[in-house]
């Protein structure tokens, strides 16, 4: 077992959990707007949300690194006015994760909103219900597989994050050194057994999460029909 195995694992899970929770809050309104909005700029917004899917993580990491540093206006504002320095900190890699995993939350949710028949939404409106009540009581309960999909994919995807974290956070044990970076470090130092401990853990967690997702989805489909 590597010396700071538990510390690294705790950090990795904390990053994945925080990213998932925050992205749910951010992703729901965004996916709602993308699913039902009729703005001319929708394709533009969809492209921006999907960018992290196609960009190399190092590109995202690089621009965030620059944006957070005192060489950019945003970075100067954060550092001088708010006293927040994001590079090489946990909040910094959290922001990076939010950007990087955004499509993994928004796309399943957007598809889920799109799959709920329009008449269900309209029926709720004609019954005098507000958009918020309709979202909470009608839309979300009828798109649970999509909701679960978004949560699980975001969580699993963040667990495996490497490039963005490395660019913004480096490899500070207990602060920014997540499991995937620890694997890289251990291999660099030729500690194959310790790298294997991390790799096997990530493999196991990812597999269990996906099995749980498909099992719940199947059970949920059976329950509603």
């Amino acid at each position, binding site marked *: 077992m590597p010396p700071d195995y538990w510390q690294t694992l705790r950090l990795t899970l904390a990053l994945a959990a925080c990213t998932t929770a925050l992205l749910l809050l951010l992703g729901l309104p965004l996916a709602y707007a993308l699913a039902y909005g009729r703005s001319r700029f929708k394709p533009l917004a969809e492209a921006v949300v999907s960018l992290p899917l196609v960009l190399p993580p190092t590109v995202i990491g690089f621009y965030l690194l620059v944006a957070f540093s005192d060489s950019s206006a945003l970075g100067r504002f954060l550092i001088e006015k708010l006293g927040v320095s994001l590079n090489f900190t946990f909040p910094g890699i959290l922001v990076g994760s939010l950007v990087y995993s955004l499509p993994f939350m928004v796309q399943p949710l957007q598809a889920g909103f799109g799959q709920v028949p329009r008449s269900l939404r309209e029926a709720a409106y004609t019954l005098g*219900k507000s958009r918020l009540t309709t979202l909470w009581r009608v839309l979300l309960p*009828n798109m649970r597989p999509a909701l679960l999909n978004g949560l699980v994919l975001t969580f699993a995807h963040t667990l495996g994050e490497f490039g963005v974290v490395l660019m913004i956070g480096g490899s500070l044990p207990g602060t920014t050194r997540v499991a995937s970076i620890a694997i890289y470090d251990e291999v660099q130092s030729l500690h194959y057994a310790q790298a294997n401990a991390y790799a096997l853990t990530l493999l196991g967690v990812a597999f269990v999460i996906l099995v749980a997702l498909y099992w719940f989805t199947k059970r949920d489909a059976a329950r509603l029909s």
Partner: protein
Amino acid sequence: MLDFHLLKALHTAAGPRTLDVRLTLAPGELLAISGPSGAGKTTLLRLLAGLDRPDGGFIQAENQTWYRAEPRQWLPPPQRPLGFVFQDYALFPNMTVRENLAFAAAGQPQPAHIINSLLESLELRELAARRPAVLSGGQQQRVALARALARRPRLLLLDEPLSALDLPTRLRLQQVLAEVHRQFELTTILISHDPAEITRLATRVLELDLGQVRCVGPPVAPAVPATVVGRVLAARPGGRLLVQLTGGTQVEVSGTAVVGEQIALIIDIAPTL
């Protein structure tokens, strides 16, 4: 009770047209709307409910303005006191029958009383704990109607509520609709293609075609089915029979009978589909 003039661009098979309907409904009236598909029937209902925005005109319900083009006024759908029964029923799959009704009755005084009396009068008590997915079409239709009524609407809009049902269920639900209309005295607009259904239920009928009102007036009773007698002359392939009617006219019909047999033919006016 309801006074409206609605304009809306329609995209019909015959090209772009304008839906243009001006009408006043008396309280408690049951208006049927019929017409070929693409005539704008559903669009008209959706405009009244606020699910689509009109291009012009106004909707005045009692003393409340739901919509007016100039000066601009718009009452969002949740604030219009109406019940809408969708063609596909639109029951919430995640809720039981009782929960569907409770969702609608929430915010009304004495919701439990409303729910129980609706379950009773629409014969849904046995089904209250079931989810919509396990119900038959006719049962789902009754739940959809009960749910629309649970909100205590002032106006009931029914978009071809019975068209997807088999004939016995349809006849049974026509009685239910008539009973509901008598009991609640709701101003009702019903889209229907079935002349018999319209005669049975409606006080007035509006014929729409390509967005224009063809006629408005009391429903005309469809011709009573007539019976004629004839003798089978020949049996042809595909179950067709050549029959000579009294008077000498020869017709070909589908059916089974022995050559030479005297049979009765019922002439019915089939509902236009």
